[in-house]
């Protein structure tokens, strides 16, 4: 009975939050679209194909440009244009990238002018892979490797930061505490591009311990998995070091707060060992604020690390986004931003749900 009520409340809550999320995404999309539209002069689609349009005699390019402009609602006034674009987004037409294309995995059977299949020497029909430059396809295909890297980095980050944060809180002003503080400060203050470049310079170029770029080396005689890991050591190091500092400090502050609580004194008065006081009574309570961090993980996992991927030439979604920005591929950048916002919204919802799991005091109430 009680469980039933909880589930009903939970569903109510989720529905309400989803409604709110839609509202937020609506706002986000307005900002993104608004940014694109405040551009004076030539719009970005025309600008991209301007040179080609001059040379185009058949009018094919002009047609394509017009189709693209339709998708972005650039032909109509800004308000109508937004509705058009938003409608396309909802329908799943997020636009085409100017610079990327990926193979969809499907193939087109080749036919000659008369419609007869083209056969090769063995009598098999020849095929041509179909490629797509739909931004959703590109995001889907590029985010795999980014996800793997981010997942490893996140696990390492949490696995290292939380124990260190706790240790530094329990041994306040000790050696661990000071090193954690310094490390955390460094992590917060280092720009990723500089730190990445430094690591490359030292460990790759000077010492030659790790490869310079990419994911694998065709000339390497290592097994492919080991080779991949070898390539990923430096980028993951950058990601971990940069994000670990904040998490450590956060854990530490919260742990210190919890350690001052009355129930910790109660636990000590029971006669529990210090280890149990910290890792059972204090830790469960430190987890509560840590759950809010989960909101930030999701976009981090699928959104890729723009600069790190670029520096280490890993062909993930982050590098693609960087390339898109530098080459003016605005359709992709728009889609990428929207994609990240959706992830953030989902992440926030998930972390709020997790909150209710970790903290028994929190009740998800649909009405309030």
């Amino acid at each position: 009975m009680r469980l039933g009520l909880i589930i009903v409340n939970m569903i109510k809550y989720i529905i309400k939050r989803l409604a709110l999320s839609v509202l937020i995404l609506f706002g986000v999309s307005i900002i993104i679209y608004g940014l694109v539209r405040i551009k004076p002069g030539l719009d970005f689609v025309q600008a991209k194909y301007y040179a080609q349009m001059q040379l185009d005699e058949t009018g094919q390019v002009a047609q394509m440009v017009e189709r693209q402009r339709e998708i972005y609602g650039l032909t109509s006034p800004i308000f109508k244009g937004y509705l058009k674009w938003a409608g396309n987004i909802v329908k799943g037409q997020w636009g085409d990238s100017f610079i990327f294309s990926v193979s969809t995995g499907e193939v087109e059977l080749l036919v000659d002018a008369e419609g007869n299949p083209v056969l090769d020497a063995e009598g098999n029909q020849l095929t041509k892979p179909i490629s797509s430059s739909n931004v959703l396809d590109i995001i889907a295909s590029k985010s795999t490797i980014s996800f793997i890297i981010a997942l490893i980095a996140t696990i390492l980050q949490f696995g290292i930061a939380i124990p260190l944060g706790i240790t530094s809180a329990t041994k306040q002003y000790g050696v661990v505490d000071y090193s954690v503080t310094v490390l955390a400060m460094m992590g917060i203050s280092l720009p990723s591009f500089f730190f990445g470049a430094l690591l490359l310079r030292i460990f790759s170029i000077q010492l030659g311990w790790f490869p310079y770029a990419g994911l694998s080396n065709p000339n390497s005689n290592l097994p492919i998995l080991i080779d991949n890991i070898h390539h990923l050591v430096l980028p993951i190091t950058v990601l971990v070091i940069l994000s670990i500092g904040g998490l450590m400090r956060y854990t530490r502050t919260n742990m210190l707060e919890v350690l001052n609580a009355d129930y910790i004194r109660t636990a000590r008065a029971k006669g529990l060992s210090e280890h149990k006081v910290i890792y059972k009574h204090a830790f469960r309570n430190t987890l509560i604020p840590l759950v809010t961090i989960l909101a930030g993980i999701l976009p981090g996992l699928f959104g890729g690390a723009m600069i790190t991927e670029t520096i280490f030439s890993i062909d993930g979604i982050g590098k693609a986004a960087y390339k898109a920005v530098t080459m003016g591929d605005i359709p992709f950048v728009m889609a990428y931003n929207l994609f990240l916002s959706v992830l953030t919204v989902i992440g926030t919802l998930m972390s709020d749900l997790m909150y209710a799991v970790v903290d028994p005091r929190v009740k998800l109430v649909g009405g309030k």
Partner: protein
Amino acid sequence: MRKNNVNQELNAIRNDQFDSEIEKKDILVVKNLKKYFPLGSNWFKKTTSFVKAVDDVSFTIKKGNTLGVVGESGCGKTTLGRTILRLHSITDGQIMYDNIDIRTIKKRELTKLRPKIQIIFQDPYSSLSPRMTIGEIIGEAVREHKLVPAEEHRDYILDIMKSCGLPPYYYSRYPHEFSGGQRQRICIARALALKPDLIVCDEPVSALDVSIQAQIINLLVDLQKKYGLTYIFISHDLSVVEYISTEIMVMYLGSVVEQGTKEQIFKNTMHPYSKALLSAVPVPDPDVKKQRIILKGDIPSPANPPKGCKFHTRCSECMDICKTVTPILKEYEKGHFVACHLYPQD
């Protein structure tokens, strides 16, 4: 001189119609006061349930008297105090201060009326802004309402400080330098500086140590004599309330259960809750072994009070009627009101 001006301004908004109804000496008349807080709302933002923090409270205070309001946590005594100052909006009922209807007067007129009714709080630490000097804290509202000419301002504040037992060198200091008792004196000075008639004291001594508590109570009593102040003294400590009050009101879950003069309440206690409350107070004498009425259970949540008599869940003399019918507050001797089915209700 200036004070007269303020009074004239107030006279303009005073409703003379009520003059005949109440005696001149009655400084505050509260009739059927209700304060409900909305509790949660559904999807369409319509309030579905309320916490009845103050539910149908009426009383009258004469000038120079002290009304003690006693009750346990959640009984609405703090809300009552703040509602009288219209710090909360008033759900229903009437509050007449000196023939001015506090519920209906406009915001601007309310601002003019503000100095007349002041409030002192429980927590001396959060009731002083940490970034202002004591002089500023006490004097800012005096300046705002132009109660004294600018050139006399400083002397006036120092004078007020002196009568609250604050040495003049406090004037340019900051609250962080002072202890709880001294801060409470500053709060009293802040209220006193506005030349109020009525001061609502919301548990002014509960957060203080025993020896400091006595100092503050004595100060309040002295000031009352000196300036002819009227107090509404809110406290959970019966012995303090008994000491300082002339009339007492006992509240339970938003309603008044018993009301009367101090003698009536303490010598002729009628309501079972008041009796229990009185007997629960520990006596600092090891030889007194009194017969204690120990109430069962906890105080119910004010958001979801019991039906019938709100006290019936804990009452030792609960009858069947108590569970269904809410008793009305009835006068049994002059000025002594009780809401209980143990006594004839009609």
